[in-house]
C-alpha cells in the first residue's frame, strides 16, 4: 500500500512537471514574443509591458533574476532565449557588457530619446530612469537644508549617520563616484570619516535607515529617492508614512557638481532570438508614454527630457544630477568594493 501510494504520487509529480516544463518552453519560443531577463521586479514593469503589448500585439515573457543574470545568459550561449536585459545599477549594465552577453544597438530613436551620459558610448546599454542617492535628514534634529557628500565625513555627524551595507550596489556606485571625482586616496579618507560617524553597524535596506531616523537612532540616512515616494504613499503599512514624515530629502552637492544618480537600464542580448521585437520594446521603453508610466508608478526620474516627474517626487525639490558619465563611475566599482573591505566599513563605527 505504501509502495502503491508512493508510485502513483511519483508518476503524478513527474507528469505535472513534464507538462509544465513543456508549456513553459513553448511559450518562450512562440512567434511575436519578446523574452525579458529582468532584475527589475515583474510587478514594477508590468504596467509598461501591458501598454507595449496593447500597442504592438507582441507578447512579453519575463524572467525575474537577480544575482547571476549575466552568468546564466553566458552559460546558455547561442541557445539563450533572452532578448532584452533589464537591470538596475550602472555597474550591472557595465557587467553585462563586459561579460560579452550584449550586442551594440545603433538606433536613431534610442539615441534621440536617451541623453548621451545615460547610455554606453558603444551602444551596449541604455539608461531608462535615474534615481538620486540622497541624504535623508531628520526634520526635527537637522537644521541645515543643504549638504554635500564630502560633509558626511565631518566629525560633527559623529554617531549620527545610518546606511545600509557598503557592499550594496547603490553604495558601491556612490563610493565609485567619489573615487572618480577625488581619486582613490582622498576617497578612502572620506570613507573612513563616514565610517567613524556611523550610528550603528550598516544593515537592512534603504527604508530601514528612514526608520532609524524616525526612531531617533540616527539623524542622517543615505538612500534612494524613490523609496521616500513609496513610503509616503504606503497605504497598507501606514506607519511607513510616519517614517517618511520624519525625514526631509536633501540633494547633496546641488551647489556644486550635482547629486550622484544611478540608473535602471536595458540592453539587447547577444543571441537574441527575437531581435526585431526586442528593438521595438527598447524603443517603446524610451518613449514618452513609457517614461511617464515609470515616473508615475515607480517614483523614478525619466531619462527622456520633458517628461514630468510625479507630484510626490516633485515635493522633494529639484534634482541636479552629477554630469560625470556613468560609465566613468562604473570603472571604479571594483576599487570601491575593495575599499569598503579595507576600511572595514561594514564592521560599524567602533572597530
Amino acid at each position, binding site marked *: 500500500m505504501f509502495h502503491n501510494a508512493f508510485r502513483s504520487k511519483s508518476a503524478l509529480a513527474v507528469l505535472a512537471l513534464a507538462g509544465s516544463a513543456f508549456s513553459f518552453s513553448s511559450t518562450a519560443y512562440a512567434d511575436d514574443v519578446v523574452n525579458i531577463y529582468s532584475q527589475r521586479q515583474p510587478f514594477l514593469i508590468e504596467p509598461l509591458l501591458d501598454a507595449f503589448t496593447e500597442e504592438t500585439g507582441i507578447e512579453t515573457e519575463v524572467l*525575474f533574476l537577480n544575482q547571476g543574470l549575466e552568468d546564466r545568459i553566458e552559460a546558455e550561449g547561442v541557445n539563450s532565449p533572452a532578448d532584452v536585459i533589464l537591470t538596475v545599477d550602472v555597474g550591472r549594465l557595465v557587467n553585462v557588457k563586459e561579460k560579452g552577453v550584449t550586442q551594440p544597438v545603433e538606433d536613431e530613436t534610442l539615441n534621440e530619446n536617451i541623453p548621451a551620459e545615460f547610455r554606453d558610448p558603444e551602444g551596449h546599454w541604455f539608461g531608462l530612469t535615474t534615481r538620486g542617492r540622497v541624504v535623508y535628514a531628520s526634520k526635527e534634529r537637522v537644521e541645515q537644508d543643504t549638504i554635500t557628500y564630502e560633509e558626511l565625513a565631518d566629525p560633527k555627524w559623529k554617531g549620527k549617520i545610518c546606511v545600509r551595507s557598503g557592499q550594496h550596489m547603490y553604495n558601491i556606485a556612490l563610493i565609485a563616484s567619489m573615487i572618480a571625482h577625488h581619486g582613490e586616496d582622498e576617497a578612502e579618507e572620506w570613507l573612513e570619516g563616514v565610517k567613524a560617524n556611523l550610528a550603528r553597524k550598516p544593515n537592512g535596506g534603504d527604508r530601514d535607515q528612514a526608520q532609524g531616523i524616525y526612531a531617533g537612532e540616527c539623524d542622517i540616512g543615505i538612500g534612494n529617492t524613490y523609496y521616500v515616494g513609496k513610503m509616503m504613499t504606503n497605504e497598507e503599512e501606514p506607519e511607513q508614512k510616519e517614517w517618511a514624515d520624519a525625514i526631509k530629502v536633501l540633494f547633496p552637492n546641488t551647489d556644486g557638481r550635482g547629486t550622484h544618480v544611478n540608473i535602471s537600464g536595458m540592453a539587447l542580448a547577444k543571441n537574441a532570438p527575437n531581435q526585431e521585437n526586442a528593438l521595438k520594446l527598447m524603443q517603446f521603453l524610451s518613449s514618452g508614454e513609457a517614461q511617464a508610466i515609470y515616473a508615475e508608478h515607480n517614483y523614478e526620474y525619466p531619462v527622456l527630457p520633458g517628461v514630468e516627474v510625479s507630484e510626490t517626487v516633485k515635493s522633494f525639490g529639484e534634482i541636479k544630477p552629477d554630469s560625470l558619465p556613468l560609465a566613468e563611475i562604473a570603472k571604479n566599482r571594483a576599487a570601491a568594493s575593495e575599499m569598503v573591505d579595507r576600511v572595514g566599513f561594514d564592521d560599524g563605527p567602533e572597530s
Partner: protein
Amino acid sequence: MSSFTLRQPASAAMKPGRTRRQRHPLSLFLAAIVASVVLLPIITIFIVALSGSGADWPHLARYVLPRSAVTTFILLAQVAFGTGIVGVGCAWLIVAYDFPLRRTLSWALVLPLAVPPYLAAYAFAEFFDFVGPVQGAVRTLFGFERPSDYWFPDIRTTTGAAIVMTSVTFPYVYLTARVVFLMQGRNIADVARTLGAAPARVFWRVLLPVARPAIAAGVALVLMETINDFGAVEHLGVRTLTLAVFSTWLNRGSLEGAAQIALVMLVIVIFLLMAEHLARRRQRFHAARSTQIKARPPRKPLLGLRGIAATMLGLLPVLSGFGIPLAIFGRYALNRPHQLADPHLAEALITSLATALATALVAVCAALLLLYAASLTRSRGMAVLTRFAAIGYALPGTILALGLLISLARFDNFIDGLAREYAGFSTGLLFTGSAVAVVLACAIRFLALAEGAVQAGLAKLPPNLDEAARSLGRSAPASAATVLLPLLKPAILTAGILVFVDTVKELSATILLRPFGFNTLATYVYENASRGAVEDGAMAALAIIVTAIMPVILLSGSLTRDREA
C-alpha cells in the same frame, strides 16, 4: 526505489554460497551515475576556482578572510551550541517526562523547520527593533522615549544571527536525538538505573554518549545550513564567508575568486565533519535487538508547578522559531487580505508543491541507491563518495546552482551542436531553464538531508536482519526490497519530508535556474523582499510556512504511533 526489485540479477539467488561477494553491476552502475550527477556542480565550481588567477587573494587574505572566517567560526560555534542544547534538551524532555501538552509539543517542536532562515531573520529584526512590540512594551513599562534612554540587546549581531539560526534549525537535532532516546539505550538506561544511578546521571553518562552520533549528524546538518545561508546574515549585517563570496563575485566581478572562497568553506565543513568522526571513532554502539524497537520508555510524570515549568520550557523554542515569524507575517498578511485571491499566489503554491514533491522523490531515491550501493560493496571508497556527494549542502545555494547551470548548459549546447551538425535541427536547451533543472538542483542540494535520515534509519536496523534474509536465500536486492525497505519506512518518510520542506523554502537555486513563468512561493516573497517590501510578500511567506508544516503534522501522527505503540 523500485529499481531494487525490478533489476534483480537472475543468477544471484541461485548461488547461495556467493551472496556476500556477488557483484551487482546494475545497482553499482546506477549508483555511479547518480553520484556523478550529484558531484557535477561541485566539480564545476572546483574547475571554475582552478581557472582563476588568484589575483583576489592578496586583498581577501588581508582585509576580508581573517575577519569573516572568525565571524563564521563564532556563528557556527554558537549555533552548534544552541541547537545542541535546545534540540537535545527538548528531545529529553519529551521522551523522559510527562507534563501538560507533552503530546502537542512533541510535534510542535518541529514547526520552526517550516520557516526559511531569511524570513526568520526579517521577523526577528522587526520583532526586536526599536519600533517593534518588545521594545515598545519596554518603553511603555519604564517610560523611556529614545533609544539612548535604555540599553537593549541588538539582534543585528553575530549572536543575534546565531539565535535566529538556532531558532529555526534546532528541530534537526531534536528529531534525531528524540529518535535515539526513544529507540536506543532503553536497556542500558534500565541497567544503569537498577545499578543505582540517578536519572540525571543516566542521561549524562549513558544516554548522551549513546545518542552522540545521531546528535552530531543533526548538528552537522544545522551547521551546513548555517554556513550556506546568505539571506539571514545579510539582513542582520553579519559578515560571514558567504557574504565575501557574493561581494567578490558581484561587486568585483570575479566568479573564480568567489568559487575559491566557497571551496575554502567546503574544506572547513569537511574538516569539522572529520574531526567529529575521528573523535568518536572508538565508540561503537550496537543497535538493540529488534524486540526492543517497539519498547516505549516509561515517562516520569511532572506534577504541579514543575509540570507547568516543563510546558513553558518546551513552548519557548516553538514560540521563538515559529511564533515570532508567524506573528510578524500574520499581521502583514492581515493588512492585505485581498492577496489571498491573487491567482499568482495559487499558481505559485501549486508550482511549489509539485517541485517539492518531485524533489523529495528524486532525493530520497538517490539517497537510497547511494547508501545501498555503499553497503553492498562495503568499500571505504564508496562510503566516502556517498558522504562527499552530500557536501553540496554546505555551499551557498546560488553557487551550487551556478555550478549546475554551467555544466548543464554546456551539455545542452553540446547536444544541440551535434543535432545541428548531423541531424539538421536544433534541440535548443534541453535541461537548462526547465523545471527539470530546478528539481535536479534542489535534489542535489538537499541530498544531505535525505541521506542523513535514511542513514539514521539504517543504523538502527539490526544488521542480522539482512543477514538472516540473505542466508535464507534472498538475494541482496530482494532482501533490501522486502525486508529492509518496509522497516525503513519511517526513515524514508522523514527523509522525504525534510527534503520537501526545504524545497518549499528553497530560493537561490530556483531563482537562478527556473524557466519563464515558473513562480514558487519563495520567488514570490523574494520579488517583494528585493525591493525592500517584504510586507507585500507576507501572504506568500505564510503560505510557505503552512505548506511546509502540513507534511510535518501529517507525519507526526504516523510516526508517533509507530514509535510509541
